[in-house]
């Protein structure tokens, strides 16, 4: 939506799209992944999502009222924040975790900066990282899917970090989502259905997610456990929150670069950081930290990847 400002002669046609419509389309595209989460982890997952969305919307309304801004809870952006935050929670998290996370995400991650379009960091990820640093014991207590009596189980990536290697999880299980993990991240298939919808409608561009996923694949393949080029790249791509992060969080309009060149750079940066954290870092998963770090680099990327103005000789960077 960013590059639709094409100067042309009249008559002009409006595409009939608005921020509000795009946001609701993104919500729609997240439905399959949410449904998969409920299918694998039971009705608890649905409650967590509902709480996350409700508290995000309520926080947005209260803060906009308090700041004297126009109340824009119907534009769907707070719904996305709450939903994505809930997607990042373990299915058996206590009920107050999504509430606290959503309030923090919307208040500190978004409204403090001035609301939609002003935030530096992806609000949902801000909320997740806050929860992760505050209550790690709830944020890392994962349960096995399809078993409704809360059997704890490590995520595939945590098993990998712990030394075990793909003990029970086949690629098919990873792809469909039958594995331990957060509510919304487990089913790559469901996420890809939503992502494909967004790509086909032109709401997100392929550069960031595809380059991001490819970079992780190449990087984890090269630096494998048994010497160079022995890595299990498919495992790394399908596990953790990579698909969710790459297609739905790294592509956030506000916090990612505007130009295609910049988006490629952004994707590579996210991919390298994610792989480095996964392979050598303290955490088993690094998608959220990688995206947040690249969010911080977005203004710089935007500054140095301005499109060349047609007819101008030399691109000058204004400081």
């Amino acid at each position, binding site marked *: 939506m960013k590059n639709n400002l094409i100067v042309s002669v009249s008559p002009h046609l409006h595409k009939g799209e608005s921020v509000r419509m795009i946001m609701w389309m993104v919500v729609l595209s997240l439905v399959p992944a949410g449904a998969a989460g409920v299918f694998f982890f039971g009705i608890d997952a649905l409650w967590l999502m509902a709480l996350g969305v409700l508290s995000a919307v309520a926080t947005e309304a209260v803060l906009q009222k308090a700041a004297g801004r126009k109340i824009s809870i119907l534009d769907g952006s707070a719904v996305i924040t709450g939903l994505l935050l809930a997607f990042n929670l373990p299915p058996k998290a206590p009920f107050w975790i999504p509430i606290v996370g959503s309030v923090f995400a919307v208040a500190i991650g978004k409204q403090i900066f001035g609301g939609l379009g002003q935030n530096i960091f992806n609000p949902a990820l801000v909320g997740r990282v806050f929860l992760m640093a505050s*209550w790690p014991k709830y944020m890392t207590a994962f349960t096995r899917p399809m078993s409704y009596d809360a059997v704890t189980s490590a995520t595939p990536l945590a098993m990998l970090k712990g030394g075990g290697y793909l003990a029970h999880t086949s690629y098919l299980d990873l792809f469909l989502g039958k594995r331990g993990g957060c509510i919304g991240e487990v089913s790559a298939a469901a996420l890809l259905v939503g992502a494909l919808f967004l790509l086909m409608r032109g709401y997100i561009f392929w550069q960031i997610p595809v380059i991001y996923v490819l970079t992780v694949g190449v990087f984890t393949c090269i630096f494998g456990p048994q010497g160079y080029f022995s890595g299990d790249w498919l495992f790394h791509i399908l596990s953790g929150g990579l698909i969710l992060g790459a297609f739905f969080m790294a592509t956030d309009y506000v916090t990612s670069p505007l130009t295609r060149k910049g988006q490629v750079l952004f994707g590579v940066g996210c991919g390298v950081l994610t792989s480095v954290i996964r392979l050598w870092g303290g955490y088993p998963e690094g998608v959220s930290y990688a995206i947040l770090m690249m969010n911080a680099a977005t203004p710089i990327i935007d500054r140095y990847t301005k499109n060349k103005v047609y007819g101008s000789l030399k691109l000058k960077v204004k400081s």
Partner: protein
Amino acid sequence: MRKYISEFLKGIIRENPTFVLALGLCPTLAVSVTVSNGIGMGIAATAVLLGSNVIIALIKDMIPDKIRIPCYIVVIATFVTITELLMKAYSPALNRALGIYVPLIVVNCIVLGRAEAYACKNSVVNSFFDGLGMGVGFTLALILISAIREFFGSGKILGLTLIKGFEPAFVMAMPPGALLVIGLLLGFFNVIKGRKA
């Protein structure tokens, strides 16, 4: 007398070193994990500030302009050493908790800032009240920040548990919590100031 009172009071609200001048943020970030640390740091800094302000105001005419900063540092370091030795003797636990941040008061920008901006231009008595006000303002700011951080970070105030069953957010006891609290409080005080003006 009224003049002295106003010199004293300006350090608490109008020119609060932490929230208005934004000085001395390094020790503020580091030691505001618990209220007792905050109070200890505040008292230590106040003692140094009082001593250095008075001495510098006394000797301001003897110091050559070109080497005034080294002279200030010598005076300040003397008082910091006195404070640190006293703290080691009478409150070793606090000294251990504050660690490197006690010797680092030497380069605390509140102390140096008041010496450079105030004590070297004003009378001894004025400088005394300025130092006292700044010290109390710094202490109050530390208490406010550390109370918020201790409550949310460990569910306690001064080591006493307030609410049973409250799950503390570890992040508030870590550096990001300090930056968050200071940032929000700075914003809060700016809003209040903006409303008054």
